């Protein structure tokens, strides 16, 4: 602010290379800390000067220049666009072709930050021919370079299916799949994130990712000691599972459901969220898969999530997943009800602090419409609000006419009394249900 830019600018053109490098480093650090300074760097026309003689300079200068570009490009899309417009991408390609791994790392980091903002910038990065060089970078032995290259590929492919397809066409999937075995935790995070960004766009891309034989190796990532590796692993599995029932079947057969359930049980907080959603997607596809989730003991961890987590979106995800599990047939609803989930759902629904987004009502409705497990229903009968009572009473009216033991039980547990206490408008559905129930019993008992 105190005219530092005007002072540093001529130093960039100094004869002594050391001064040039230090000036570039200073600019980079200034731009890194604050986006106003980054704007000043751009406005002061420093970038073209920085880039003009880049190809003849030594590696320290290239590193510093790439650092400046990264620092400017990371703050906002406009700054990134101005960086691109200065012709930075060609220079960054030259840096990517350099032998020194530090230079390559700095260049790919800059590309990553530029491509992160939106799909046009990613497209510009791709058009400059970055992807084959990045795939080469991934194969280099230095771990830091691999990390950055993986994160850049992840940022490029996350915007649109065409970009992801371009990344796949460069043969990135095979190398990324090999890197899953690497013991470094941060590298695994980036690799898993890259694979999940590729797989999320379409069925073909997901199938390509699966064909790279990542299962069952990915399941070991779910047991890693690093939280974010677990989260990204669960995200990858979720992105694969959500497309078709066949892919879900594949993952269930590989034992993925058990691994994810254990992962949910061992984590806390937002790290659990992708795992919960994965279970929901699997259960949503078909009733066999839903039964597979139940058999793998999926319901207790989801129930625990509902109780323990404070954040709304995790609770909503857990409730949605439970709804998907329970909505197929009476057996599924019974399995969900036996796990004592329904009172918890009801209490969350009734809780005044919970928001409408939770869509607990839809979940409850889905489960209740198939539930024939009467003890659980009776539990709910006592505290439920009118719009839920409608469904509960409807279920009773369907089951009671056919089952005499259930009728007896219903009377002894005081359910019939409760039903009498419900006031309903005559002619409404609720009244019909109540009438059906009353017709099952002789007059004296009803009185």
């Amino acid at each position, binding site marked *: 602010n105190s005219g530092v830019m005007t002072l540093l600018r001529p130093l960039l053109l100094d004869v002594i290379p050391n001064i040039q490098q230090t000036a570039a480093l200073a600019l980079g650090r200034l731009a890194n800390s604050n986006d106003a300074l980054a704007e000043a760097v751009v406005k002061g026309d420093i970038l073209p000067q920085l880039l003009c003689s880049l190809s003849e300079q030594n590696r320290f200068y290239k590193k510093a220049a790439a650092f400046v570009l990264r620092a400017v490009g990371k703050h906002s899309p406009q700054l990134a666009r101005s960086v691109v417009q200065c012709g930075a991408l060609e220079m960054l390609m030259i840096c990517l072709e350099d032998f020194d791994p530090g230079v390559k790392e700095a260049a790919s980091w800059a590309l990553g930050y530029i491509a992160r903002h939106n799909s046009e910038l990613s497209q510009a990065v791709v058009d400059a021919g970055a992807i084959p060089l990045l795939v080469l970078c991934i194969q280099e032995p230095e771990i830091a370079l691999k990390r950055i290259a993986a994160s850049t590929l992840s940022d490029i492919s996350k915007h649109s299916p065409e970009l992801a397809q371009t990344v796949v066409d460069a043969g990135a999937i095979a190398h990324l799949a090999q890197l899953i075995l690497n013991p470094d935790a941060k590298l695994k995070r980036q690799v898993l994130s890259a694979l999940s960004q590729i797989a999320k766009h379409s069925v073909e891309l997901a199938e390509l990712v699966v064909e790279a034989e990542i299962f069952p190796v990915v399941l*070991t990532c779910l047991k890693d000691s690093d939280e974010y590796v677990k989260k990204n692993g669960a995200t990858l599995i979720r992105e694969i599972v959500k497309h078709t029932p066949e892919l879900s079947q594949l993952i269930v057969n590989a034992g993925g459901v058990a*691994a994810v359930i*254990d992962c949910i049980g061992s984590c806390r907080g937002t790290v659990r969220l992708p795992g919960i959603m994965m279970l929901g997607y699997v259960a949503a596809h078909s009733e*066999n898969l839903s039964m597979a989730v139940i*058999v793998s003991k999926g319901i207790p961890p989801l129930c625990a999530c509902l109780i323990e987590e404070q954040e709304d979106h995790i609770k909503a995800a857990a409730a949605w997943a439970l709804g998907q599990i329970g909505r197929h047939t009476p057996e599924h609803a019974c399995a969900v009800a036996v796990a004592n989930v329904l009172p918890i759902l009801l209490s969350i629904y009734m809780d005044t602090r919970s928001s409408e987004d939770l869509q607990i009502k839809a979940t409850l409705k889905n489960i209740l419409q198939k539930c024939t497990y009467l003890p659980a229903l009776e539990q709910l009968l006592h505290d439920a609000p009118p719009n839920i009572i409608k469904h509960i009473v409807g279920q009773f009216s369907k089951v009671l006419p056919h089952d005499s033991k259930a009728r007896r039980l219903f009377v002894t547990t005081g359910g019939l009394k409760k039903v009498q206490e419900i006031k309903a408008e005559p002619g409404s559905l609720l009244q019909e249900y109540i009438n059906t129930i009353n017709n099952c019993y002789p007059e004296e008992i009803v009185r």
Partner: protein
Amino acid sequence: MEAVARLEARLLLLREEWFHRNRSLDEERKIEYKAAVKIQSWFQGCRVRSYLRYLNQMAIIIQRWWRGYVSRKHFRKMVKTAYFMMKMNFYNEMAVRIQKRWRGYYIRKYVHNYYALKKYLEAISVNNEIVRSELQKYTEMMENEKKRKDLEKKEKKKKYQARKMHYLLSTEQIPGIYNSPFRKSPDPMELLLRKSKPLSHRQQQTKSPFTSELYDWPTCKRPPTFSTGQPLPAISRQKPQGPFHDTAEVFWQRHKPLEPTLHMAAFISSPLDKAREEMKREDWGNCIHDKEFLPFSSYNKDKKYDPLIHRSGKYGHEGYGTKHFREENPKKWVADKDFQRVFPPVVLFEKYGKTYSSTGQIV
């Protein structure tokens, strides 16, 4: 005449009667006419009515017959359709029964195979158990690795500390810090100090950036230790040409443990080679004397023959060459002359010591 008078009287009466009769007739004529008309009309009416009745009845008969015919035809048709419907219903029922059975069978076998589903779910649980146990093992292994690494690090640090503080070792006169005279036995640190070598003043080598990565590399089990940076070339040596590989890489490559290919590890012609080797070994084992037979040149003429232990000891029998078949005492000899040989002499042995080589001077 009377008759005529009578007739003339009667004629007057007659005229009156005639008149009356005509009149009455006339008057009655209308009545009679009307009556006759009435009777006739009545009769005609009856006739026509009976004719109509007859016609009616005939028409009824015809219509009856016709309607009967048509209705019977219709009835037959109805019966036919009813029969047809009955048959079709029957067939439908039977077809429904067949379809019911078939659909139940097919769905239970292929679509909703309960037992296959059950087996599948059981298989999934078994598979899950396997996966869970494998993952558990993996985590334990990772944890153990981590613990081991931490322990090693701690040990290393401790040893380094001991080396640095070597001067704290206790001497004969003065007990060190860790060897207080009030203790029963010296502190473990004291023992460590005794074991450790003192650090030289050379600066601690900074860790090369490659050590940590290559340590994790699956093929390189120990971290390669090498000097920092590039080695300085000797002053008088000529500058080496060309771009060489990185020293670290070369070192790593050189110290890569051997991974022989299958061809090398398991010889293709191994039985033959093995047999040959076996034979060679056997021969060598069976040889009593390691030295080869010396050539028959006089270079080795003066070489003393080393007898075997078997011969040279007092327990071995004195064999050929030392034992003579003649009595040693000449007084006891049978003949004066030497014994004659029975066998023809071997020419080669005659030349022993006196042969063809120019180095031996006999020739």
